[in-house]
């Protein structure tokens, strides 16, 4: 396993940058909500397993037949 990413919890200023990059232009009270909520998610991101083999596939399969138009 690789080192924890991110290495430490984000600061308010860093969360503001992430929010801006995500196109979120939140008023102050909603930004406070986001900071509080992100604190609940961030530990999960820090615990994500990393360092897999390059060829390890994610749990997804794209079957192009599934997107063919279907007659009603």
């Amino acid at each position, binding site marked *: 396993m690789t080192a924890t990413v991110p290495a430490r919890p984000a600061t308010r200023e860093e969360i503001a940058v992430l929010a801006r990059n995500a196109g979120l232009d*939140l008023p102050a009270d909603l930004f406070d909500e986001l900071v509080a*909520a992100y604190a609940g998610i961030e530990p999960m991101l820090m615990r994500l397993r990393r360092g897999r083999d390059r060829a390890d596939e994610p*749990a997804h399969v794209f079957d192009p037949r599934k*997107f063919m138009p279907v007659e009603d």
Partner: protein
Amino acid sequence: MHAPATAYATSTPAGSGDAALTDLGIVELGRMLRAGATSSLAITRACLDRIAAHDGTLASFITVTVDTALAQARRADAELAAGLDRGPFHGIPYALKDNVDTAGILSSSHSKIFADRIPPESAAVAQRLEQAGGVLIGKTATFEFAIGGPSWDLPWPPARNPWNRDYLPGGSSSGSGAAVGARFVPAAIGTDTGGSIRWPAAMCGITGLKPTYGRVSRRGVHPNTYSLDHCGPMTRSAADCAVMLSACAGHDPRDPGSIDEAVPDYAAALSGSVAGLRIGLVRHWYEEDATAEVVAAVDEAADVLRGLGAHVEIVTLDPLRDYVDAKTTISSVELFTVHERDLRTRPRDFSKRLRGRVLPGALIRGEDYVQAIRWRTELTSRMFAAFRRFDLFATAGWLAPADPADPDGVDFFQKRQLVTMPFSLTGLPALNLPCGFSAGGLPLSLQLAGRPFDEATVLRAGDAYQRATDWHLATPVLA
């Protein structure tokens, strides 16, 4: 602590005519319909009367479709009288969670965003239940868009728990759980991304099945997390779940997540026996984090299954937290993607709870999302490997009884790990069924999960357990 269910079974008075019909499940009602002992119209009116009398304080319904229900019930009676029998769901009243589209009927997802939304087409699951002759009684409350709840800042209040209105029914299929638990309807459809069928089933003392991913079409169901969304039955018993699943399962080429796999006769699989079944008891998911009452009740349920001839053996799988972390990371990103336009332009039209659960998804990096779905592969592969030794897994259905209905209460995500999430992430069929009561009279639940598309074995074990116990027969008193 675990008093016999009969101690709570003070239901509608015996011999109270149509009111007694609401005490019955799908199988019994179907038997009466075919014997000419009642009519779909009588059952439907009994349901509507009970809703009118008691739902004012339970708030399990957003819309009660009185005219539709009466018309469909009359049609079912006429068809049955004419010898046209659409199967065991014919003439049976049911409810749909309000994130399930219904043509011409409000489909709000319990959100201000969709407060006036009347879709032109019904969801596939609604179409199948209508074709099976079901009688749509109404649309039920949910957490906002099946994630933001319980919320007190929406156009409709959160549903309450029929066992004690000071408590919540779980979620996100909160109204479906409360409506079946309150005996307003014998059956309802819920949706489940991380436990949203099974949690309210556990809190409301009913039986809820999350089928295998791809088993029931999600076309026309508002998405929560594309790669994790399921919908399925919520009923009184495993036998009733079998009937409702047969009515709504099957391949849908218009749902990219649907899988073309034959649908067996689930009711025919209910042999009443678990003799020889190998059940892995995943005790480490609940033994430390659950309440003592839950631990005792689930252990006792395992003993019942053992006594019925199953080989129950403790098994260690990956830590519960790993499944929760991977699932929540995936969901957060997909949820934000679903709601990004409205969250950017009108965030105050969502509940605070929804914003808190969905907005952080905007900040998660692409690499983290892919790492989470790679982790999903690993966790799923390891769980499936354990099926070499077992036919089923058993664990707690939820780690505590229902929470108080407190607008200022701690978010449930922060209280305990969600023991339903492993089978969400792995897409396996999982059944929650009642297995006891807390000292405060709130239901407790057992969870059984099986191999992909082996709902039949899951339901068989649940049905065998319910033939040997009476927890699922308990009925709350609605004053």
